[in-house]
């Protein structure tokens, strides 16, 4: 597990949630997971490909998503699938954008694919290279779960090292 690759995502999620919800947040228990991912609510998956590769899953239940949507919209919104999907994707975009900024300024180059909503109960299993870190961020609106699996792209790093020799 490469904490230096994962930490920017945790920091970004914590900071973004605190900022948009204007509240104190708390990072909940962290666990390593090698089992198949089982979603807790509605999940958005963002895939990273380049010098580092992996994926981040954002997972929130519909009630929490609707509460966050109401804050984002500045007015109460009705709980619909569309609102829930848009909320989780917007959160994912904000967090990933901020994490990418930090990693890019450290010299990593990679492509981020737009978030896709993950509707299956199971999927995206980790392995010894990409075992996932699972954590949640507590907010007054509810918990936001993150499942992060990230690793260095060996081929890319190998090419870079070869090019500098």
């Amino acid at each position, binding site marked *: 597990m490469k904490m230096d690759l994962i930490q920017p995502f945790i920091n970004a999620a914590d900071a973004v949630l605190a900022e948009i919800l204007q509240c104190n947040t708390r990072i909940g228990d962290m666990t390593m997971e090698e089992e198949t991912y089982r979603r807790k609510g509605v999940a958005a998956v963002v895939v990273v490909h380049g010098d580092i590769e992996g994926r981040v899953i954002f997972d929130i239940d519909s009630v929490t998503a609707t509460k966050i949507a109401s804050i984002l919209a500045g007015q109460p919104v009705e709980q619909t699938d569309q609102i829930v999907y848009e909320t989780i994707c917007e959160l994912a975009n904000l967090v990933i954008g901020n994490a990418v*900024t930090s990693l890019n300024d450290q010299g990593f180059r990679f492509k981020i694919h737009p978030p896709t909503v993950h509707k299956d109960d199971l999927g995206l299993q980790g392995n010894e290279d990409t075992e996932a870190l699972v954590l949640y961020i507590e907010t007054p609106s509810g918990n936001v779960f993150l499942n992060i699996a990230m690793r260095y792209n060996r081929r890319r790093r190998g090419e870079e090292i070869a090019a500098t020799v």
Partner: protein
Amino acid sequence: MEQFPALVRSKDRQPVRYLVVDDSVFARKNLTKMIDSFGGQVAGEAGDGCTAITEYDRTHPDIVLMDITMPQMEGIEAAERIVRQHPDARVVMVSSVGYQENIVAALQKGARHFVQKPVKPEVLYEVIKYVLGDEGLALASATAVAGDSGQ
């Protein structure tokens, strides 16, 4: 949301008109709320770069708030095309992806400034004041132009 001293156009003291470009409905709503709190007026909205160009031609806003990552045409390319057609256009990039290369690319293509998401109203306010320069004026009262906001 906090009210700010109304920002108006110094030439006619009318509200500053904005074009808000973002593929996220939430982001557009959020920016619209901030614009209201600055005493401004949303002249148009767009959810992608192509629509932003046509909306600019239609509305001729004083300020464009432009996201970067969008479908069809990204914000930096849209900003470049708008500025090529309208060299006086004031485009402020608003994106969560704020790494150096992105910012430099946007500025080289004609954007005037960059604000990172999540947007803090006080930061955006100061950036808009800076970008407007002598053509903007901050009135003492936040409600001074409220009656003109339908213009």
